[in-house]
């Protein structure tokens, strides 16, 4: 990096600094730093944490509903399971759901959005389907999908992805529609560049920044939605300790053992907050045009 900068300056290249520091700019943003740091910590906890806690699944009916103590930091739930261990391993589920949903939604949305934006004939059919999907309230759709097709991690991810797709498609399509009018794209067409190449080489890169930003928001809302589904009893199998499940199971005990809901709730809120703060930061730095809009 230092080397690149030096040579750039040697050549007297104007503006090289600006280009090189895009990453630096992103990293220097307070939101990205704070949110990212927090998130990194969460990821670490999710990856190595479970090795250091007790078994989150181990039942201990004699230790039911014990309040937090020195041994059991977050207390126990109605089956005497260690809430701390469960919250720590719940981080895995939330992060996996968040990341998987964001990745899948972005991948599918990117594909459909590019097609809709670029191929005139397919625009209307794709967008009508997306409008239809969009008009079904996301939570309803997800509840229905999960409880109708059986609760597994897979179905939960699918159920959360489906309502997110139209938003990504719209975003990508709008970027494609504006970018395809850019003179440089028209110049490429005029130079005989084939359509797939025009799309990947000239249009696709423009979608990346807004997509990264969008992906963080999707990630955050997916984690929330997963928890809500779990809470409503239509989430991931309760055997897997996800934050939503822990809270759902703790719901009945809210007034006698509030810690069962409290700790996973805090963990969830903090994680989503971190993701969102990071998203805002990324948006400010990566995509100032959208930043002003949103």
């Amino acid at each position, binding site marked *: 990096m230092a080397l690149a900068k030096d040579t750039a300056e040697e050549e007297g290249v104007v503006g090289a600094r600006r280009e090189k520091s895009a990453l630096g700019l992103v990293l220097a943003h307070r939101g990205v730093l704070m949110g990212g740091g927090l998130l990194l910590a969460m990821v670490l906890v999710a990856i190595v944490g479970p090795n250091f806690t007790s078994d989150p699944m181990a*039942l201990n009916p004699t230790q039911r*509903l014990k309040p937090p103590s020195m041994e059991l930091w977050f207390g126990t739930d*109605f089956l005497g399971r260690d809430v701390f261990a469960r919250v720590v391993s719940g981080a895995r589920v939330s992060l996996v759901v968040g990341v998987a949903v964001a990745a899948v939604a972005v991948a599918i949305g990117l594909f459909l959005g590019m097609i809709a934006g670029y191929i005139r004939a397919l625009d209307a059919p794709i967008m009508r389907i997306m409008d239809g999907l969009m008009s079904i309230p996301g939570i309803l759709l997800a509840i229905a999908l999960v*409880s109708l097709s059986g609760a597994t991690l897979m179905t939960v991810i699918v159920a959360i992805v489906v309502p997110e797709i139209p938003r990504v498609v719209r975003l990508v399509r709008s970027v494609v529609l504006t970018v395809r009018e850019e003179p440089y794209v028209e110049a490429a067409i005029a130079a005989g560049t084939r359509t797939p190449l025009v799309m990947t080489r000239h249009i696709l890169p423009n979608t990346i920044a807004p997509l990264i930003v969008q992906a963080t928001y999707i990630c955050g809302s997916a984690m929330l939605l997963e928890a809500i589904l779990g809470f409503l*009893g239509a989430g*991931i199998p309760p*055997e897997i300790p996800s934050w939503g499940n822990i809270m759902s199971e703790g719901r*009945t005990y809210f*007034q*006698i053992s509030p810690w069962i809901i409290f700790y996973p709730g805090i963990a969830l809120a903090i994680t989503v907050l971190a993701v969102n703060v990071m998203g805002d930061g990324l948006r400010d730095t990566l995509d100032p045009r959208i930043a002003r809009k949103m």
Partner: protein
Amino acid sequence: SVLGKAAYGQGKSVLRVIPHADLKNLDPIWTTAYITRNHGYLIYDTLFAMDEDFKPQPQMVDSWTVSDDKKTWTFTLREGLKFHDGAPVKAEDCVASLKRWGARDGMGQQLMNVTDSLEAVDDRTFEMKLSVPYGLVLESIGKISSNVPFMMPKRVAETDPFEQIKDYTGSGPFRFVSEEWTPGSKVVYEKFEDYVPRDEPPSAAAGGKVAKVDRVEWLYFPDQTTAMNALLAGEVDYFEQPANDLTPILESNPDITVEVNDPLGNIGFARFNHLLPPFNDPEVCRAAIMAMKQEDYMAAGVGDQKYWNTCFSVYPCGTPNASEVGSDVMKVGDPAKAKEALAKTSYDGTPVVIMQPTDIPLLSAFSLVTAEALRKAGFKVEMQAMDWSTLTSRRASREPVDKGGWNMFHTWWIGADVIDPMSIAFSGDPEKGWFGWASDEELEEARKAYPLAKTEEEKLAAAHKVQERLWAIGASGHLGQFFVPVAYSKKVSGLIRSPVQFFWNLSVS
């Protein structure tokens, strides 16, 4: 409904109840749902009813005679009985109602199997002719739990038993206010002024059903915490089934009484699928049962010791048929021993698919405890989470696991439903039996012998034989007997002790 709201309020007494479930169906013959049964008790009357000692007593019936060959039964109705539309209750109504019930209910079907004719003699009398002397005529007609033979007008009772009734004209102490019914939220009953209660004091379902409030409102709360808060805040009067863990908070409130009303309690069941490996081998079932420790289930699912006890009888402990004959296998409760037993069987490591109904915390907990116990005993276990309604559809499948089948699920029966061998839960008929399809001819013979028994001793012997066979084939794991308390405001009085929730005799000050 605006009119309805305006009509009550001034000077009328209202009992506001949080029922244990949402009333979805209004036909107590068509469904076995307990909530519909309770609804049935509010608006319909019965011919006979079970008293505190589980003895059938006449309710609508005034008197009856049995022929010497014990094959002809003649019943006479009380005078002055009326339906909610004002029409008198006639024998033909009762005949039609009994026939419809007989087409749906298990015990009813058995009774109808031995019934040659059932006909009205005059307006107040009807006659039942049997092919053999049958020991459970009154027990069947006076059945306390689902499906209860409720008396409906003939026109209603002539509805196809497999279709739901649409006319809710009842014969009981309360009237269903259909205009105010909001499924999922609210059901309203009003006192039926023309109901003629018996003179005896109430005793379980029997005795005088005196409506002491003008109006009963069922307000369904999907959320236990909110329900509890509503009772604490005085927004409702009666909470039918608070979660056991909530009782300490309710008990700590001086304005609220918490007590167990159902003397029989509920019995937890772990059900095996006897059609599929590994549980098509009774020894494997027995090994699995050995791994199950009732204390663990009860502690995990119910919690507070005062609401449960271990019970190694297949019949609810405290009822006449209860005994521990052949129950050793259930008493083991030790995964290590189970492991030894399992090693002697044909078990080859086939994974056990347990269906876990995640929307029912108790059963969810049972499933988790079983999973842990079986794993310790050397089983391979696969949990499949689903909601209860998915489970109920999947448990009907006899297919192999990879085609949507299953190996185990958990449920509970209320004590009154498994009080004798006639319960479908104890069936040994692989065709008509209950999900899991345990198969044992000896068991079936013993069950058939029970109603035909001439003496109490014979009856008891048959019941114990059934129990022995059940344990021998490892039909189900029995997970303990537990009691769900009711909680109500101190303003409410007149609660009737019974396995079923009744709303007559209750008053609000």
